[in-house]
């Protein structure tokens, strides 16, 4: 008995010493843009993790009502670096929970500038100031890897050495920003870099500029401020293209009508209490089953715009998930659209599952309920090869020519406020249209196209195939609006 007690005591004393000590994790978190942002704009957090022992860990970044989480396998001697996009918030909390051991937390305060922000990435030269702007001096490492984080700043000046120091993901994000008409001036770059950037800036040359000196860069920026940037479509506009989803509503109306009819029918034939109680009870059970079985389909609408002959088109997409039951649901995000994803409603409680390897959100988790429509908004750019030339043959006759390298499908032409049928045309082919023909815009997509084009401009509208995009609803719809040169 005594021996057994001594053995137990020995085990109790030696056990903690023999057990593996919890891994020591070193966590560093740094916000992009040296911690500066604008109210209501997304940003990015650079997280570095290292450990002294192999462990699995969950990283969670909470910014306002949105959070991003990812699961990592940490190895000793290897620093893991994550660039996590965060939603609009003044305070960001980063926490790391290893499989064993205590959770580590870091709290970051993002400086919210009321003035527009000017990012200045000049390796040499004195301070740069632009009237009305708050200038933030940047090194290459302060630039984000997610294009969405560029929303934090309003203009950017970079020189050749800063550009050269950017890694691939930073360059991709910068090009994405350039394609979405962000104001960028590159100073003293070599011709190769300039050609690359020229190909990505498709906003009439008003937003991506090259300068020889920093002072020239500021002059260019000042003059560009006189021209309005192409504004992204308001989410309400895209929602109008989608139309209200009434499938769930119709289903509930039919189900309730059937329940009421069943109760009335039973009432006509019997007054037995058990039957009178059982009928609505069965209806209620059937209603619950119906809600759990029938899942309303998600919808995706993509609207893209570009200038004739441009290499890139900008797109915005609206992915709507209608709910049926009260539950926490997880929806996959199409990987091709995931580079810049955020909830369309900033007040939504939403959690993104982040893939550390690809640096993109993989899925979104949120609460659903009957009739609730949660929407994710995507934006970005894609390569385009459509060029259109319009030539006046007389006062009313216009010749429309395909000056691009590829054939067009059938589409619509918006000419002087009217919609004309545009036949499919091969490269170099043309069609003659009467400006007085056509019809006023009658469909929502045509009205949207007319709203997006200046009244004196001509534009072509084509439906797009989304064959290359995976994990999208079967009846997704997409359009491309190409503005013709004057």
């Amino acid at each position, binding site marked *: 008995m005594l021996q057994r007690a001594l053995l137990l005591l020995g085990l109790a004393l030696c056990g903690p010493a023999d057990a593996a000590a919890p891994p020591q994790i070193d966590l560093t978190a740094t916000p992009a843009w040296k911690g500066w942002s604008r109210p209501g704009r997304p940003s990015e957090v650079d997280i570095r993790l290292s450990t002294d022992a192999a462990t699995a860990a969950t990283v969670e970044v909470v910014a306002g009502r949105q959070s991003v989480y990812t699961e990592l396998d940490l190895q000793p001697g290897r620093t893991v670096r994550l660039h996590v996009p965060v939603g609009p918030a003044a305070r960001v909390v980063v926490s790391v929970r290893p499989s064993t051991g205590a959770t580590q937390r870091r709290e970051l305060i993002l400086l919210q500038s009321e003035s527009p922000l000017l990012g200045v990435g000049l390796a040499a030269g004195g301070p740069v100031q632009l009237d009305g702007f708050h200038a933030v001096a940047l090194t290459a490492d302060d630039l984000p890897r997610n294009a969405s984080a560029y929303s934090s700043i309003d203009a950017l000046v970079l020189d050749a050495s800063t550009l050269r120091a950017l890694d691939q993901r930073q360059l991709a994000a910068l090009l994405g920003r350039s394609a979405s008409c962000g104001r960028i001036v590159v100073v003293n770059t070599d011709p190769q870099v300039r050609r690359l950037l020229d190909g990505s800036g498709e906003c009439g040359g008003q937003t991506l500029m090259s300068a020889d000196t920093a002072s020239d860069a500021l002059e260019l920026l000042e003059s560009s401020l006189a021209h309005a940037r192409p504004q992204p479509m308001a989410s309400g506009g895209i929602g109008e293209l989608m139309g209200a989803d009434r499938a769930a509503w119709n289903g509930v109306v039919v189900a309730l009508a059937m329940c*009421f009819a069943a109760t009335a029918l039973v009432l006509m034939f019997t007054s037995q209490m058990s039957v*009178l109680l059982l009928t609505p009870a069965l209806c209620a059970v059937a209603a*619950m089953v119906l*809600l759990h079985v029938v899942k309303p389909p998600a919808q995706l609408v993509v609207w893209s715009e570009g200038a004739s002959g441009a290499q890139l088109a900008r797109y915005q997409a609206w992915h709507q998930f209608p709910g049926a039951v009260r539950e926490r649901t997880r929806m996959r995000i199409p990987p091709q659209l995931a580079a810049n994803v955020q909830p369309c409603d900033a007040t939504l409680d939403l959690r993104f599952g982040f893939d550390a390897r690809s640096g993109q959100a993989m899925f979104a988790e949120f609460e659903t309920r009957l*009739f609730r429509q949660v929407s994710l908004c995507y934006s970005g750019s894609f390569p385009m090869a459509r060029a259109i030339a319009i030539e006046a043959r007389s006062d009313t006759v216009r010749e429309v020519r395909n000056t691009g390298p590829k054939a067009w499908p059938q589409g619509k032409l918006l000419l002087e406020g009217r919609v004309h049928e545009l036949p499919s045309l091969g490269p170099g082919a043309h069609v003659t249209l009467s400006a007085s023909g056509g019809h006023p815009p009658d469909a929502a997509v045509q009205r949207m196209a007319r709203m997006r084009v200046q009244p004196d401009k001509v534009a072509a509208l084509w439906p797009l195939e989304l064959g290359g995009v995976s994990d999208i609803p079967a009846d997704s719809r997409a359009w491309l609006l190409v503005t013709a040169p004057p």
Partner: protein
Amino acid sequence: MSQALPRRMATLTGLAISVVIASWWLGSTRLALDDRADPSRAAADALLLTWLVRGIALAMLGPRSGALRGWRPASMEAFALISPAWPVVVFAWHASTLPWAHAVLAELLLFAAGGVLALIGHRLRMVTKRPDFADALAMTLGVALAATLWLMRTLWAPPAA
């Protein structure tokens, strides 16, 4: 008098209440969906209405029915009045942000109230021993209870989402 007719009338009353509230709720929801507004508020209001209106109907009918026909038939009538709204409650709860315990508790309270009010009416008749006087007293009590419920309706209201 046969118990079938009052029971049918109670079910019909419950059905009418449910149809009216469901129509109002689905109309409000359709407007909210068309405006891309949040339809959960209308669902919460519909739930509140189903509880409040059935509560008021129970208060008006329960004691009188208990006084006239006794506790057991009056309780059955109360249950017949409450039950037709269950499908509306299920759908509206799924569209609202209310905790499930709130909805279940409200339904159980209505059931309990149906039995208790019927018992009160029955006891009134036993105490007064005069059916016409018990009927009048039960009716007065029912009106007073219904008025109290209506005046205290904000207490039933679910917290804003």
